[in-house]
């Protein structure tokens, strides 16, 4: 056993035997308990121990624990276990009974627990949804439930209390707010009333009320002081008011005085302004000279007129005299003397030299001025710049003198008669031309003058009629030629004399054209002669050719007639030689015809003088002209090419003149073309209204500087005595007269082509 004991001990010692002590496990506090007292290692199960009793209720549990304990396991004393086993058995049975009861009890309790928990849950739900007044029955068999219910009820109560308090807080705070609001609006009697269960609120109420009370007290004090002050102030104010009233009376008086003075000043200023406005803006240069020869006022316009500023005149009253031109200074002095001594209005015109050196004309007017009492205040003067007027006058004077000089220097006699028939103007030329006596012209009576002059005219009646007619029609212009008994010829022009659009009379102008008319006649005559001379030149030129042409048939006639004579002198048998004689005689007649053709052609050509229009076949006309010239062309060994257009339209023109032109052009060509040269004559249609004849030669051509002169009269390149220089000039004139033209194209060393354009009907080109 001992060994065992020792072994357990050892084991216990090894396994912390103190903690393994049963009583320690069961926390036995009973010091009388064997387990506690002995501190023996006996298992309580084996002996009567307090612990055993103590754990009666929890026996089975302990048993279970003990059965696992090493002490129990090491206990070999089984007999000592019998009471314990009995107890355990009894205990077991008891426990089973208890367990059964407990099970029943547990069932009932769990039922109650479920109900109670549901009740608690419901209560908590109500509380959480805001109803803290809920209470549940606290009684329960189950302690825990009772406790829980109690807690729930307490919680609900607490919550209820808190809710109530917060309500109170809100109400009390609202009252505070209300009271303070009232105080702030001056209701010092307002107090927070009512009692509160909440201490905090109660103390707040006290503080608030105390504060209101102290404010109220303070205010009352201040109000009192203010009242005293107000009283003093009122007294003072009363005195001030009294003084103020006095002052107001004085002020009012003073104000009225000031007002009056201001009004007077205003009137004065306005009057001054009015006066200045008028004076300053006068176009003229105005000034006021005081009796002590000072300038009181000078209008600003002086600067525009003189270039000097008003201040300059005021500063130097002599400036007016200084700028007066030297020639006018004496007049100016005299005028000033007069103005001051006579004390009456005076006027003078004088010139000044402006600051920029320009001369201006001044029209000066001045007038003495006096005040209401008649005191002399000086002279008021006005200087007007009349330069433009003076210039215009000058210009007018010049124009008039120019007109008058022109009137007198003109070659025409001029007479101007007004609407009333009075001579308003005339020139000496007019008087001389008509030999009008002084007394008639001096009377200025147009009718008298007319009566005097009319007798000098060849056809006085028609002149008078015309004149009277013109006087009835003032706006008519007229022209006439007057022939005098003494042979003079006047041109008469007459036209209305107007100013703007209104007629104020009539101007007659007479021009002695006697000399001109004579010269014109002479010129016309000499032109005629010249034309004729040219023609004669052309004819003379022809005559040389013609002489040869006639000479040849004459020579033939001469020989044939000579032969007949020879035969007759030789007494040849006439009968036998009859055929021979007839042949010779026919030859004679043929050649006589030849001569006749030539002479007729020449005569026909030279006879034509006046323009006579006829239908002409130009091709035939050309052949005729060439007829005069072909022998000459032949003898000069010139090749003549004639290209005449078939069906060339006929023209209506002057045949003789056209032939003269062509003759002239072809003659010129013959003159310039060398041997073996070519002259080509071409006719063609230029357009539907015009036909053209071109004469082309292969002569030396005409240089440009000469070409431009070839149609000028008396221009010639031929040797003296060989040409008049009129041929092309006359040809040109003729073609113009016939409504056609001559064109020339030339190239040096190549030749020249003259083209004559002829209207199919005279006048279609120049215009019908």
């Amino acid at each position: 056993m001992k060994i065992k004991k020792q072994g357990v001990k050892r084991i216990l010692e090894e396994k912390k035997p103190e903690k393994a002590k049963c009583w320690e496990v069961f926390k036995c506090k009973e010091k009388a308990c064997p387990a506690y007292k002995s501190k023996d290692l006996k298992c309580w199960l084996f002996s009567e121990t307090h612990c055993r009793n103590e754990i009666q209720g929890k026996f089975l549990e302990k048993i279970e624990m003990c059965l696992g304990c090493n002490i129990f396991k090491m206990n070999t004393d089984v007999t000592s276990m019998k009471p314990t086993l009995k107890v355990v058995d009894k205990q077991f049975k008891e426990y089973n009974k208890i367990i059964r009861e407990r099970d029943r009890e547990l069932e009932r309790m769990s039922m109650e627990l479920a109900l109670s928990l549901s009740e608690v849950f419901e209560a908590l739900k109500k509380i959480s949804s805001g109803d803290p007044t809920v209470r549940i029955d606290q009684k329960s068999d189950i302690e825990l439930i009772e406790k829980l219910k109690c807690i729930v009820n307490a919680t609900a109560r607490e919550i209820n209390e808190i809710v109530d308090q917060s309500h109170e807080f809100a109400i009390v705070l609202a009252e505070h707010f209300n009271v303070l609001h009232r105080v702030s609006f001056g209701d010092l009697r307002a107090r927070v009333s009512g009692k509160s269960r909440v201490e905090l609120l109660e103390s707040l109420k006290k503080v608030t009320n105390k504060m209101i009370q102290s404010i109220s007290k303070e205010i009352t004090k201040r109000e009192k002081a203010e009242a005293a002050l107000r009283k003093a102030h009122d007294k003072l104010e009363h005195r001030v008011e009294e003084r103020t009233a006095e002052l107001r009376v004085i002020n009012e008086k003073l104000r009225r005085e000031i007002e009056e003075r201001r009004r007077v000043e205003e009137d004065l200023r306005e009057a001054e302004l009015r006066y200045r406005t008028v004076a300053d803006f006068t176009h003229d240069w105005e000034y006021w000279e005081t009796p002590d020869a000072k300038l009181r006022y000078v209008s600003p316009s002086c600067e525009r007129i003189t270039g000097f500023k008003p201040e300059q005149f005021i500063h130097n009253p002599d400036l007016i005299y200084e700028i007066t031109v030297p020639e006018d200074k004496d007049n100016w002095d005299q005028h000033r003397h007069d103005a001051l001594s006579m004390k009456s209005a005076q006027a003078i015109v004088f010139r000044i030299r402006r600051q920029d050196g320009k001369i201006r004309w001044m029209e000066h007017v001045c007038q003495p001025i006096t005040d209401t009492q008649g005191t002399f205040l000086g002279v008021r003067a006005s200087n007007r710049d009349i330069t433009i007027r003076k210039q215009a006058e000058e210009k007018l004077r010049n124009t008039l003198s120019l007109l008058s000089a022109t009137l007198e220097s003109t070659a025409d006699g001029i007479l101007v008669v007004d609407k009333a028939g009075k001579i308003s103007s005339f020139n000496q030329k007019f008087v001389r031309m008509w030999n009008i006596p002084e007394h008639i012209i001096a009377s200025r009576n147009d009718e008298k003058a007319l009566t005097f002059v009319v007798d000098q005219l060849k056809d006085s009646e028609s002149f008078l009629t015309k004149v009277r007619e013109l006087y009835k029609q003032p706006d008519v212009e007229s022209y006439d030629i007057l022939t005098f008994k003494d042979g003079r010829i006047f041109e008469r022009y007459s036209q209305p004399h107007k100013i703007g659009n209104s007629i104020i009379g009539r101007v007659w102008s007479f021009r002695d054209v006697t000399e001109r008319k004579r010269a014109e006649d002479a010129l016309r005559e000499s032109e005629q002669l010249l034309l004729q001379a040219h023609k004669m030149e052309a004819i003379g030129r022809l005559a040389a050719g013609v002489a040869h042409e006639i000479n040849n048939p004459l020579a033939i006639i001469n020989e044939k007639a000579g032969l007949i004579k020879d035969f007759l002198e030789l007494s040849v048998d006439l009968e036998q030689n009859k055929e021979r004689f007839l042949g010779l005689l026919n030859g004679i007649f043929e050649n006589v015809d030849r001569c006749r053709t030539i002479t007729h052609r020449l005569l026909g050509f030279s006879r034509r003088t006046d323009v006579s229009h006829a239908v002409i076949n130009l091709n035939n006309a050309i052949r005729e002209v060439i007829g005069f010239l072909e022998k000459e062309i032949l003898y000069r060994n010139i090749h003549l090419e004639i290209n005449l257009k078939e069906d060339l339209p006929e023209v209506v023109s002057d045949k003789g003149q056209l032939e003269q032109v062509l003759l002239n052009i072809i003659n010129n060509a013959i003159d310039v073309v060398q041997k073996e040269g070519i002259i080509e004559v071409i006719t063609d249609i230029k357009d539907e209204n015009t036909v053209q004849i071109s004469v082309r030669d292969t002569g030396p051509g005409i240089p440009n500087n000469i070409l431009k002169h070839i149609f000028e009269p008396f221009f010639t390149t031929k040797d003296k005595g060989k040409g008049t220089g009129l041929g092309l000039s006359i040809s040109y004139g003729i073609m113009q007269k016939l409504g056609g033209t001559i064109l020339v194209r030339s190239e040096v060393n190549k030749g020249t082509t003259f083209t004559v354009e002829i209207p199919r009907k005279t006048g279609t080109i120049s215009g019908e």
Partner: protein
Amino acid sequence: MSQAKVLLVDDEVEFGSALAERLRLRDYDARAVSQAEDALTIIRSDPPDVVLLDYRMPGMDGIEVLKVIKQINPSIEVIMLTGHGDTNNVEETMKSGAFEYIMKPIDIGSLIEKINAAKKIRNSIK
């Protein structure tokens, strides 16, 4: 002295032939040509004593022919036949060697005299 041998040069054939016949009627050995070239041929082949030469001719004119004749044979005398208005040119023909000139229409008597005078000169030179 036999009658002169005469050559007539004129473009007018009728004139030439009529005048030649009249000269032949007067026993002159006369013939007429109308072209200068023909005349020159004859002058070369069968030289006449006297040439009657028309001053105005187409182609070669009288003066040119005259000059050629005188070149070919200076002893042949040439009498120029001229028309009126050609007198200006007479001087030139005379300078060029013409023996004489006579104006158309011709007076046959004067022509005979001039031909004879020319023949005489020619004979004297011969």
